[in-house]
């Protein structure tokens, strides 16, 4: 018995080895073909392979805050209003027209007619109401983004009083109090309208079986590997979408993703390292696509912790950081040095503010004034992950570390996993930390109030910065709808923030994408996710 078994083993080993040798020979001679771009077969290329760094957390966009989700769902779901193709102005979406009452409390939307969900059911006023009822009766765990409307039905701050259907294609929102960015909020892709029938059918599994009205239908999701969506042939705009199929593929490493692009394995990638820009430009089969900037990357100085409770020290740090070096080295020169907490593309940006110049002598003088001319030792926390506003936080931290050492501040770079990082930042447990923000809706409120108002301590005001004068200004700006007046208020707010210096605003980055040369009409959106309905391959 023993011999037989051994013989079998021997034979199978030999068989496998010959098989392997045979295969590797073949594969070597054929692998070179990979270099050739087109994969033959279909006459016109109509499948786009999109390489990105992470998988979606859910395909029901309202259930998550993760950006990777929205890149897919914005193609499946549509919102009542749309942003402009490459800005955050308001345009018709599922609502063709809308009216706002003079008191800013009543919004009436005329819905597009003849629109159907992917499951064949009709889109109408009831569907809109169904979706909003679902969200407002949930909680922050289920629908974290819904807090854009001031909380949930049970909460005091919730701004929506009532939603009712005037007729089958007219829906009316009544607010408790005016909310200046209300329309902009409605256009956020998380508030895509889902099929009520499918929501009822799938229940909790809707997150894996999304059904909307968008230009693409969901086909398949293989976790951490790929998501496939295909053309919605019943789409209300008959000329769209151009593509037949999109495959979103997960390739975590930025460089690996670029290699896959260069090998023709994918057509588009996001999250290109700035340092790789030259490689892409040098390759005549590839092109660079720039995403319009609507973000800020900053170095937070926790104002409740020593020595940053002293304004002089915070200003000194502002003088000690050489933003130009950082931008040249780790943004490939493609970023704007920041002087305000919000990007210049947003209305109300105060361009009159004078940036703290890079001046080590001035920094030393300020430290001396604060009684710290001998310097101090501090922890400098750097994000563990690449974010659009800061693809290489650890490296930027190393530059800052080196700069600070010149004014006798010894900074120890620390890091921890991303959720814990956010947790600690929220609680104000960091002395000095790198972080940033990408705008959700293009409103200044979404930067200044969200990131620096005292109400936001414990949420996103991670510098724990509190200033009552600023608070009054920001609250006033929330409730008035005259944009000119709001802009004035926000400009004043930026002055106060500049003087108090709770941050060192570092950069407004231009996130880069790379694509094969034949990809046309790819219009990246400043919010980080875009509809791909117009994308096509040109010959």
């Amino acid at each position, binding site marked *: 018995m023993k011999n037989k*078994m*051994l013989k079998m*083993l*021997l034979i199978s*080993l030999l068989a*496998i*080895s010959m098989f*392997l040798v045979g*295969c*590797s020979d073949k*594969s*070597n001679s*054929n*692998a*070179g073909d*990979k*270099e050739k771009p087109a*994969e033959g077969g279909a006459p016109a290329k109509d499948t786009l*392979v999109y390489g990105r760094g992470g998988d979606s*957390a*859910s395909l029901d966009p309202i259930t*998550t*805050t993760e950006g990777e989700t929205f890149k897919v769902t914005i193609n499946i779901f549509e919102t009542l209003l749309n942003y402009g193709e490459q800005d955050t102005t308001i345009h018709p979406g599922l609502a063709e027209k809308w009216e706002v009452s003079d008191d800013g409390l009543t919004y009436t939307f005329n819905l597009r007619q003849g629109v159907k969900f992917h499951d064949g059911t009709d889109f109408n006023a009831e569907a809109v109401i169904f979706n909003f009822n679902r969200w407002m009766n949930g*909680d*922050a*765990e289920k629908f*974290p983004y819904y*807090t854009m409307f001031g909380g949930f039905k049970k909460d005091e701050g919730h701004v929506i009083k009532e939603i009712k259907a005037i007729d089958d294609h007219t829906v009316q929102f009544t607010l408790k109090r005016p909310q200046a960015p209300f329309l902009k909020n409605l256009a956020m892709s998380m508030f895509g309208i889902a099929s009520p029938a499918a929501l009822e059918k799938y229940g909790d599994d809707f*997150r*894996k079986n999304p059904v909307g009205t968008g230009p693409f239908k969901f086909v398949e999701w*293989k*976790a*951490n*590997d*790929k998501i*496939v969506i295909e053309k919605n042939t019943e789409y209300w705009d008959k000329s769209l979408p151009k593509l037949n199929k999109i*495959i979103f*593929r*997960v*390739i*975590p*490493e930025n460089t*690996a*993703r670029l*290699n*896959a692009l260069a*090998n023709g*394995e*994918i057509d588009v990638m996001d999250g290109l390292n700035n340092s790789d820009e030259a490689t892409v430009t040098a390759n005549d089969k590839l092109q660079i696509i720039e995403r319009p900037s609507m973000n800020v990357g900053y170095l937070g100085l926790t104002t409740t912790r020593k020595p940053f409770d002293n304004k002089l020290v915070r200003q000194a740090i502002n003088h000690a950081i050489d933003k130009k070096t950082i931008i040249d080295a780790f943004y490939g020169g493609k970023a704007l040095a920041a002087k305000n907490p919000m990007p210049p593309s947003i209305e109300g940006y105060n361009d009159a503010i004078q940036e703290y110049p890079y001046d080590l002598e001035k920094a030393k003088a300020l430290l001396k004034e604060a009684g710290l001319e001998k310097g101090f030792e501090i922890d400098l926390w750097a994000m563990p*992950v690449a974010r659009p506003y800061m693809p290489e936080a650890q490296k930027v931290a190393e530059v800052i570390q080196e700069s600070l050492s010149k004014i006798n501040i010894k900074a120890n770079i620390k890091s921890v*996993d*991303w*959720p*814990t990082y*956010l*947790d600690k930042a*929220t609680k104000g447990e960091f002395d000095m930390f790198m972080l940033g923000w990408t705008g959700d809706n293009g409103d200044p409120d979404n930067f200044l109030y969200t990131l620096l108002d005292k109400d936001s301590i*414990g*949420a*996103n005001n991670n510098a724990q910065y509190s200033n009552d004068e600023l608070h009054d200004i920001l609250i006033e700006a929330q409730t008035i709808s005259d944009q000119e007046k709001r802009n004035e208020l926000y400009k004043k707010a930026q002055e106060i923030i500049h003087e108090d210096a709770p941050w060192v605003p570092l950069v407004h980055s231009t996130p880069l994408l790379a694509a094969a040369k034949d990809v046309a009409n790819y219009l990246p959106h400043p919010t980080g996710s875009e509809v791909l309905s117009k994308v096509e391959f040109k010959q």
Partner: protein
Amino acid sequence: MLTYTVRRILSLIPVLIGMTLIVFAIIHAIPGNPAQVILGQRATKETIAALTKQLGLEQPWYIQYFDYISALLHGDLGISLRTRGPINQEVWPYLAATMELTVVAIIIAVIIGVNAGIISAWFSKSWFDYAAMVFALVGVSMPIFWLGLMGQWVFSIELGWLPTTGRENPRDPVTSITNIYLLDTLLQGRFDQFKIVFQHLILPSAALATIPMAIIARMTRATMLEVMRSDYVRTARAKGLRMFWVVYKHSLKNAIIPVLTVIGLQTGLLLGGAILTETIFGWPGIGRYLYDAINFRDYPVIQSGILIIAAIFVLINLIVDLLYVLIDPRIKFTK
């Protein structure tokens, strides 16, 4: 044999219980709040507090442990915080991907390692012997993540022979049945896809195979040298090179024990090495699943992932132990 098997399996029970305890302790010792994980950057104080309560994270640890064990006994590995999917459904594709990678790596290691060992021993002190043994020495000293990167650089970037990452051609994805793609493509008769899948496997599995290959080669060579001192082989050798095949067959038989030993011992290294290899080659396997989970503080996934990997490790060692006895009953078992 039967008593031995039963005793060997029974002795696993305290190990398995201890493993769940350790895993549970690790998860609870890791700082960070799952509620924050779920809510992300847009979280508020109130929502975090409410969710912490809802997840039962405020209960004493022994109640949480008891809940965990009873769920585990029902085959429930919990729900991923990130995807909200049940882990026992989610984990299979990852596990299959890792299995494919490690099994191919072991096959490569065994075939090349055993043959190199035998030939080295046969031509002992020849240039081949020296070259192979230097190679083996360098091999065991190789940081596989570096080897993987260098392989990528040379074969994918410079030469363009092999794909850089992934498991398949994204334009022509494999329809998965078992999630072991080599098998799936064969089952569907898609030999073109099989080739592509195989090309994707070469670099990562070769990187993963290096260390076990080197160890197998050295062990086989050592075993063989002893075999060759036997009169039987001396006579055979004296009769010339034709006898090589006779000895070769005889040697293969003797190589089984060292190979088994290495497989048993190296599984842990392979599974651990898979984390590094999968990160570099974008291989959607259990190692990366786990590593991502650690980076996202997806506690239920970390917990189950570690447990699954450890359980596989224990299982393979059990099988190896049983095989020893089956192949060579002379091996006495102490416990």
